[in-house]
């Protein structure tokens, strides 16, 4: 276990941005936190990295970490080369050669000023720095922000390859398709709480969709023109003989986040 978070709370004024969450990240694992905007994902990462002071709870980190923030700002008036030099000094076990290789692959000019880079280029620059550090845990907040699909897939492959060396990854995203490709386990956050967590493959196989005229024990996915309703139901709770439609992760996410639950 590389990271353990227990009953973490963080208030902004009276509002709980993070409201008593807990999870663990194992060695060699990719753990994704997802959820709608304002769910508390970024605040959670900031509490773990120490950028925000937690109000209560426990955070146990067994190893070194690095952090890619949500806002890929960097120093706008420095040149790319100057930023790389800076990381050479302050980065954790920074591998400059590796960083320069990534920049070259994506044709980022070392003499260019950060401010002149596009959003996507800035994300790549920041990723090239963070991924060239040699640490135990990579904490990445929206690592594929602004990237085109091809580059995004390459970056996802790169992130995955970190685990081949026993590294762990904790990251946030609101792109479900991306999470499905890369996460071993997920936690879905809403309003500061974790509303569903588990192994992604297990989550997928434990839910099904049932169309019903009556109210069912489950989450409402949608109401049909006929007035019938489509419910997301745990397969264990579906009586035999009832027809089950497959639920995609998107269905599960949507129904659970919307959270219109019917308990008979």
């Amino acid at each position, binding site marked *: 276990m590389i990271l353990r978070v227990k009953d973490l709370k963080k208030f902004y004024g009276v509002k709980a941005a993070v409201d008593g969450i807990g999870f663990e990240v194992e060695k*060699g694992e990719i753990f994704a936190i997802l959820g709608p905007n304002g769910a508390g994902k970024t605040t959670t990462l900031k509490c773990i990295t120490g950028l925000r002071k937690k109000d209560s709870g426990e955070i146990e980190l067994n190893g070194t970490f690095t952090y890619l923030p949500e806002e890929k700002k960097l120093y706008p008036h420095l040149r790319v080369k100057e930023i790389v030099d800076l990381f050479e000094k302050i980065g954790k076990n920074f591998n400059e050669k590796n960083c320069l290789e990534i920049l070259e692959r994506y044709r980022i000019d070392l003499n260019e000023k950060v401010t002149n880079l596009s959003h996507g280029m800035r994300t790549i620059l920041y990723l090239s720095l963070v991924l060239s550090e040699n640490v135990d845990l990579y904490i990445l907040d929206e690592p594929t922000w602004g990237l085109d699909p091809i580059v995004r897939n390459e970056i996802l492959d790169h992130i*995955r390859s970190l*685990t081949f060396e026993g590294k762990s990854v904790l990251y946030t995203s609101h792109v479900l398709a991306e999470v*499905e490709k*890369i996460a071993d386990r997920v936690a879905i956050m809403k309003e500061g709480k974790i509303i569903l967590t588990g192994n992604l*493959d*297990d989550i997928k*196989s434990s839910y099904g969709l049932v169309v019903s005229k009556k109210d069912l024990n489950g989450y409402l996915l949608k109401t049909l023109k006929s007035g019938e309703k489509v419910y997301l139901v745990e397969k264990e709770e579906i009586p035999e003989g009832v027809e089950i439609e497959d639920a*995609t*992760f998107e269905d599960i996410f949507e129904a659970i986040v919307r959270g219109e639950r019917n308990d008979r």
Partner: protein
Amino acid sequence: MWFRIDFHSSKPIYEQIKEKIKLLILSGKLKEGEFVPSIRYLAEDLGVNLNTVARAYRELVREGVLEVRRGEGYVVSKVNLEKIRTQLETELKKKIEDCKKAGIPLERILKVAEEIYRGDAR
């Protein structure tokens, strides 16, 4: 060894890997005693996580489809082809039930089956 993984399918990824490997064995493309790719190589080639391939292999070992050669990797066991066939038949049964519900007459299903099998013999 390569096959497509459908990441958006409701079918778990490790299940997809298991199924594809079983089909490769049934069709004779993977033979008894043959090595399958290492967990890492298959993970890289398919673009899936190590843990996912490890889980698929672990379950295939438990089901007697693969076996571990210490320090070398995984090989195809002396597989009980009959067992895998029975699983496939169960799936076929479900599909045929769907067809029945959809009102497809038996004759048409038999015709499709015949076409497929004859095409095979050619």
